[in-house]
């Protein structure tokens, strides 16, 4: 099975994700895949959910926090500026408080809370999480290519969704019970109607957003998740562990791409011992990869002699991955 065949056999898979340890080539593959799909005539958005995004570097354009930027016809790239989104969000909350209670300024205690909340470590992830929902809900593109965060974060991302979901179920139940007591009191006091609980509808909204975004990550029909691995001991072990964890969260795994393979033909040439040893080590690890992952390995991508930045190099990478 090859990468291009996966795409032609499963045209319904519209959310494309690359996951793996940091620095193995997720951004490179995301960019190259988006490029290839755009060249096939699809409208594609590649976007980064990593706070330390590097799409700007690979496309050699400053796209950070600028929304979807057109890189070439059909190809758009976006880096989410989480800080900016948090600032806007804080502004919205302040405005809502001022409008609701007709205040001139937010009470100090409340303002302190708004400030402190933004400094929490989970805030950035949640903000990006939420931004992704906006991007995907708009449905402006044929394909969405996610440049994912390194493994640990991606798992945190997924587990956060299920924790949030359970948490919201619990407090929704509490809120509903509160509503019942309110109604009992209203009946006793012969009040015709009790006020509608706005918090309850707000909770429903939050729940829907969370389900939507984690639903995409685990959608067996529309999502294709590829793991990036390199022929090195640690990377293989970590990837296997991560694949197990992802499977537990129901992420539909489409296959593996092996990156940074030193061309074996070099062994025929007069090369230094250093490189010869690396080649020997690599063939051992490649054997392990083929034995354990077998037909799930979709492509072996060689180590390039140059950095992959700029469209001509991305094109070269796309040719290597998808074959011309």
């Amino acid at each position: 099975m090859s990468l291009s065949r996966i795409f032609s056999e499963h045209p319904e898979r519209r959310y494309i994700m690359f996951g793996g340890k940091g620095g193995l080539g997720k951004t490179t593959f995301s960019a190259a895949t988006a490029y290839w799909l755009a060249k096939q005539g699809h409208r594609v958005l590649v976007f980064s959910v990593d706070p330390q995004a590097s799409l700007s570097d690979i496309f050699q354009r400053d796209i950070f926090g600028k929304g979807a930027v057109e890189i070439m016809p059909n190809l758009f790239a976006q880096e989410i500026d989480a800080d900016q989104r948090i600032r806007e969000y804080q502004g919205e909350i302040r405005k809502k408080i001022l409008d609701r209670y007709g205040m001139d300024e937010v009470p100090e205690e409340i303002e302190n809370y708004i400030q402190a909340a933004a400094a929490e470590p989970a805030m950035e992830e949640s903000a990006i999480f939420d931004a992704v929902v906006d991007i995907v809900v708009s449905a402006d593109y044929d394909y969405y290519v996610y440049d994912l965060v390194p493994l640990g974060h991606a798992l945190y991302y997924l587990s956060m969704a299920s924790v949030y979901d359970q948490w919201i179920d619990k407090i929704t139940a509490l809120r509903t019970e509160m509503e019942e007591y309110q109604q009992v009191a209203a009946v006793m006091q012969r009040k015709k109607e009790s006020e509608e609980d706005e918090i309850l509808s707000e909770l429903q909204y939050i729940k829907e957003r969370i389900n939507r975004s984690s639903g995409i990550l685990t959608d067996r029909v529309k999502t294709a998740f590829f793991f990036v691995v390199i022929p090195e001991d640690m990377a293989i072990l970590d990837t296997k562990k991560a694949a197990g964890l992802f499977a537990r969260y129901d992420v539909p795994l489409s296959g593996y791409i092996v990156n940074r393979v030193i061309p074996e033909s070099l062994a025929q040439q007069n090369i230094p011992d250093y490189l010869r040893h690396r080649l020997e080590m690599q063939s051992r690890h490649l054997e392990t990869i083929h034995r354990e992952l077998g037909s799930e390995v979709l492509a072996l991508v060689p180590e390039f002699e140059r950095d992959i930045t700029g469209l001509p190099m991305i094109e070269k990478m796309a040719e290597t991955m998808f074959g011309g």
Partner: protein
Amino acid sequence: MPEEEKKKRASFLDTAKSVLYGMAGHDMSRYALKTRGSMEHLFILITMGDLLGIPILPPYYSLRLLPYVVPQISTWKRRMLRERDLTDALA
């Protein structure tokens, strides 16, 4: 004077209802509202725990709920941080 009679009867009924409510219903509705008040404070605790230094919920979504509970925050804090004594059991 059937009109006046009607009015008198209505006002008598209203008074009777109020007396009955005072005897039977008032305590129950007071209890229902008190329970609801306690739950409201529990709700704020699990959503806005950070205000007391108890982070319980990821803050992104708790901020969304903040505008609705602004008036309750100060009574809630007072209740959570106040010292308890024996008379609380009787209240």
